[in-house]
């Protein structure tokens, strides 16, 4: 009896405290939920998340989303301006022997932390990138060493003549030598680019602020905010409502949603990303080029690309996009199901055969629709194809072990140079699709060594022809990247590599 009032009092107090605590949690939570971009910032969203900003991280070595940010935060010796190579940190360069290149650095460049950028930093960065196993590894394997001749001169020595070195250097981001292997670079990297990192939450948002002492002149906007919006419909809504200034790539089937909206305009450019559907040439019946060609003839590629993608894609005329160095247009395979049936009969398949096609939906826009359209075209000529829409992780595992019949995917020629795709994918050594052709190997090796751009272009053009005639895969469409931007933006140039120069963008 004695304890009753005490416990009643304690109960009231407890409840009051609980209520107070709960409202405290609510208030506290409200404070942290917001992450508004700074005033005047360009709010730009790309279709994939940025996970890590360390330029030498293996898993983001050729990741497009990460490259967009890296190009704003770091500098490279050589830059790409449209289809041309232009001086970056290197004012000029020359090839002093077939295996020696000398690069002259721009003097007076400083990193974001105030330290001077010298040849020693370049040497350290090359060493660092060579020590990391990544998708860039094949690019750097032939580079034996880089030496600093003086503060502003670097000499690169290669084991074989390497014509693609200047192109490859557009992927070597320069950081201070002492930070080249610093894990802190993942979150708050130091570079010398037009912007510095002000905030970064992986897979969520990157906040950049202008580097006012940039050697190439100040960026036109004080800050850039790069949020990741996973849902395309949410992102399009945000662009239409003005919560975003820039959004890319806009999927072909959503273009109408954006183009009709007030205050938004669309700019397009044929990208370096393309669809292909490989045949596993080490599996029956795809070892026979006649069968592969018949499979291609069975599909109305031109009609399919037009119907599915509209303005969102261009029909391909070579195994690489037309804007890539080394492209040479080939004669398209005409749609001819009767000829395809005849060819299959002659190859010993009068009643067709059964096979499968694997892909993962996120590989590109309308991947599922493209796969289904091809599968139904093949069934018309008696080839029954089992659709295998699988998850990316599983797809990658099967791709690497050649455990597939046909494979549909997109690929990006990250450097804009055929060496990056044709030169990497189709050698007998790479064995990516069970295809081995010693004659092609010789052409590719020669192209890799040639320093002269015309010579390289000619040799890769020859490779295009071989791959096209051998029909190692069907090459249906180059994607056209559609950038949706608010009308007030000026100075924007759509970029084929999905990495637009955001430092030049301003607001009217």
């Amino acid at each position, binding site marked *: 009896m004695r304890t009753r009032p005490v416990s009643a009092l304690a109960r009231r107090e407890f409840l009051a405290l609980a209520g107070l605590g709960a409202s405290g949690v609510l208030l506290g939570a409200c404070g942290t939920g917001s992450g508004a971009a700074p005033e005047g910032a360009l709010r730009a969203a790309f279709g994939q998340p940025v*996970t890590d900003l360390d330029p030498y991280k293996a898993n983001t070595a050729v990741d497009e989303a990460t490259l967009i940010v890296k190009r704003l935060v770091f500098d490279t010796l050589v830059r790409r301006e449209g289809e041309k190579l232009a001086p970056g940190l290197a004012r000029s360069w020359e090839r002093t022997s077939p295996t020696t290149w000398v690069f002259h650095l721009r003097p007076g460049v400083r990193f974001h932390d105030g330290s001077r950028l010298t040849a020693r930093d370049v040497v350290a960065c090359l060493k660092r990138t060579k020590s990391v196993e990544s998708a860039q590894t094949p690019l750097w394997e032939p580079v034996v060493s880089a030496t600093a001749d003086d503060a502003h001169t670097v000499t690169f020595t290669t084991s074989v003549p390497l014509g693609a070195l200047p192109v490859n250097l557009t992927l070597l981001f320069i950081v201070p030598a002492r930070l080249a292997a610093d894990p802190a670079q993942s979150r708050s990297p130091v570079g010398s680019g037009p912007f510095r990192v002000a905030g970064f939450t992986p897979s969520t948002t990157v906040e950049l602020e202008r580097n006012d002492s940039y050697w190439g002149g100040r960026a036109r906007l004080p800050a850039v905010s790069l949020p990741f919006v*996973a849902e395309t419909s949410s992102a399009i809504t945000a662009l239409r409502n003005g919560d975003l200034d820039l959004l890319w790539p806009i999927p072909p089937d959503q273009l109408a949603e954006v183009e009709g909206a007030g205050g938004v305009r669309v700019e397009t450019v044929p990208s370096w990303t393309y669809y292909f559907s490989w045949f596993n040439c080490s599996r029956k019946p795809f070892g026979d080029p006649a069968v592969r060609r018949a499979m291609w003839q069975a599909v109305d590629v031109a009609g399919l690309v037009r119907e599915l993608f509209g303005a969102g894609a261009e029909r391909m005329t070579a195994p690489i996009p037309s804007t890539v160095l080394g492209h040479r247009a080939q004669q398209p395979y005409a749609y001819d199901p009767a000829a395809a049936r005849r060819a299959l009969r002659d190859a010993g398949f009068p009643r067709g055969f059964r096979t499968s096609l694997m892909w993962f939906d996120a590989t590109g826009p309308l991947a599922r629709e493209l796969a289904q359209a091809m599968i139904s075209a093949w069934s018309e000529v008696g080839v029954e194809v089992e659709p295998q829409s699988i998850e990316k992780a599983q797809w990658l595992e099967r791709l690497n072990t050649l455990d597939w019949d046909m494979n549909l995917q997109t690929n990006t020629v990250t450097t804009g140079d055929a060496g990056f795709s044709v030169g990497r994918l189709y050698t007998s050594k790479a064995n990516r699709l069970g295809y081995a052709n010693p004659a092609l190997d010789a052409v590719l090796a020669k192209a890799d060594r040639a320093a002269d751009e015309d010579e390289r272009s000619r040799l890769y053009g020859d490779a295009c022809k071989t791959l096209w005639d051998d029909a190692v895969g069907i090459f249906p469409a180059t994607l056209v990247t559609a950038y949706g931007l608010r009308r007030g933006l000026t100075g924007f140039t759509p970029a084929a590599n999905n990495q637009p120069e955001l430092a030049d963008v301003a607001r009217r």
Partner: protein
Amino acid sequence: MTRFLLRRTGQALIVAWGAISLVFVIVRVVPGDPAALILGPDASPAQTASVRADFGLDRPLAQQYVTHLGEVVRGDFGDSWRLGGSAMANTLDRYPATLTLAVLALVLTLAVGFPLGMACARRAGGVLDACVSALSLVGQALPSFWVGIVLILLFARGLNWLPSTAGSGLASAVLPAVTLAVPFVGWLARLVRNGALEEGGREYVRTARAKGTGEGVLQYVHVGRNIAVPVVTVLGLLLGNFVANAVIVEVVFSWPGIGSLMVDAITNRDYAVVEAAIVTITVTYIVLNLLVDALYFALDPRLTPENA
């Protein structure tokens, strides 16, 4: 009381262990190799093997499991290969955002569901009652990703009242919180209605009414306090539910919480983050349950650990 809490904590630990073991097995049984995802399609078998060794994935599963449990006990889930840094730190960074949504959804559910239930109880069998009971069924049947997208179409794209993605402060949280709350508003209203109807026939209600107490005071002060125990139970579980349900809603609204982190980690086979996120959600659920249990005694002094 201490014994009761100790017993409950013991039970909670068993649940946590179960969750950790289950997640450990499931993420490793699902096909797909993290090493392949890290290195991309150009990796040589030697490269893949060396990355697998770095993550300890080349060792027997049983050995991995024992090592893993030892690390988890010390709060170490390993590093995220995709995001860099400790998986737990990455998860906890995202936790406040998820909690904001969950608490907001809870406040919404309570603010709408409770008065609605009381109003239904006042005219049981009336038009409002029938509507609420029908709509509560519909609300629970609608999948949340669909509700989310429809809300975006309506309030963001159509009317442009609210943002569709995170980044505009609390306004951004409204649509996702409503999406989370939709299935449960009607449900809570039904619960409150039934409780209030049951209590309505009690003598203290008759007495209060005879004294001339107004209907509002009667319902919210007298009856409300007496149906607090079931309501609090439900709210506690709801908060846990909201944290767990946030997975899909966060993806739809690009909300930077644990849910979107987890979906990203699962598709990329970032085992450490998947485990850290699931354990965080499990522990939240368990702690909330414990809190609800403790709250009972505060709400109803007649309850003791022995008769609870």
